[in-house]
């Protein structure tokens, strides 16, 4: 089982709830804007505490009765909806923030097309460049699973194709569990081993 998620959380006047059990591969979370997709990812990452529920990822219980694994030990490779780069660190430092010492950044910078950006400051990056650095940063942090919140928006076709291949590689060769949010049916189709649709 890659993801076993049963959560409920009240946000203001909205109830976010999801119940899903997903096998190996990538699970695409699909649903209208505001339904709670990002909130679910936040709960899996440990940033948001469910009011009740259970979260098991790759056989490891992250949240449940008496269990609430601290964020930093969940080993989520989380690509946020916004880039969230560290503004005071250059791109290289951002990329290696979560990485083991001596990691080779070129393993990801190649297919992300950010080889030339390593010495730049985040503020000088374009939208798509920042997004790709954020993807690279998550991948280099030796994650146990991936949480991807619309990672491919703001990428052009060619780049999107390359990044999708990267994700497929992670899914098929590295066999990391992946939970991805997207609004693009084509992306969902291609990456998702299965599609979970959330609704109010």
């Amino acid at each position, binding site marked *: 089982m890659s993801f076993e998620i049963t959560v409920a959380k009240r946000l203001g006047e909205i109830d976010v709830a999801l119940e899903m059990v997903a096998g190996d591969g990538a699970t695409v979370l699909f649903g209208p804007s505001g339904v709670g997709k990002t909130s679910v990812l936040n709960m899996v*990452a440990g940033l948001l505490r469910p009011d009740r529920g259970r979260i098991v990822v790759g056989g490891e219980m992250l949240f449940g009765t008496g269990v609430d694994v601290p*964020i930093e030990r969940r080993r989520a490779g989380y690509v946020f909806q916004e880039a969230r780069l560290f503004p005071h660190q250059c791109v290289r430092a951002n990329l290696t923030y979560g990485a083991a010492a001596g990691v080779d950044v070129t393993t990801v910078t190649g297919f992300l097309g950010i080889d030339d950006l390593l010495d730049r400051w985040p*503020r000088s990056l374009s939208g798509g460049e920042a997004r790709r650095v954020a993807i690279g940063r998550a991948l280099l*942090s030796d994650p146990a699973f991936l949480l991807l919140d619309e990672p491919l928006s703001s990428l052009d076709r060619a780049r999107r194709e390359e990044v999708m291949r990267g994700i497929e590689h992670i899914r098929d060769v590295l066999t990391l569990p992946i939970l991805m949010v997207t609004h693009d049916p084509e992306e969902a189709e291609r990456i998702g081993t299965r599609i979970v649709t959330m609704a109010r």
Partner: protein
Amino acid sequence: MPSAEEWTVVVLSLKVGGVAMMVTLPIAFALAWLLARVRFPGRLLVEAIVYLPLVVPPVVTGWVLLLAFGPAGPIGGPLERWFGISVLFRWTGAAIAAGVMALPLMVRAMRLSIEAVDRRLENAARTLGAGPGRVFWTLTLPLSVPGILAGAVLGFARSIGEFGATITFVSNVPGETRTLPLAIYSMLQQPNGDAMALRLSAISVTLSLAALVASELLARRAGRGFHVL
């Protein structure tokens, strides 16, 4: 050119101000962090105590320090008995007075910057495997640099200018506790000391100006991270 006597005063002031700032800086940052981030029961009380030296007249602060650090005081007593250290009439005492007076200014500036740190970045760092300690050192602290610099300048300037608490606590001993303000005060007490007082004030101002320029340059380096478009 400053005379030899003025020179002694200046060097002493720099020593007292510098040591006061260096020692107070980490304490102030820890307090600022605590006040900005942790919701604990006595929070407002801690804050009030930090602010005390700002509110009560410096003379009172000096007097309280005297009671605390005097040979019979709750801090001075043990210090003397166990370590044989006495800070009365010593430059170390002057540094304590300066540090205590500078503390509230430093804490407030730092807290402002800590509160302005984007929590989402800290959350991102934690998902990347950084524990609270690493998040603090790699994000909270460096992103608070503007506040730390502002606090350092305010603190240094305040230390260099501290008078009331110092003279009450450790008196006006030449070479030990006669910092610039005390020397200036001595001058002003004499009907014809105006010129000398102005001279020393000018030195005082020059020192702080140097600190100011240094902090501006550092701040410029730190400021390059922010989006402007």
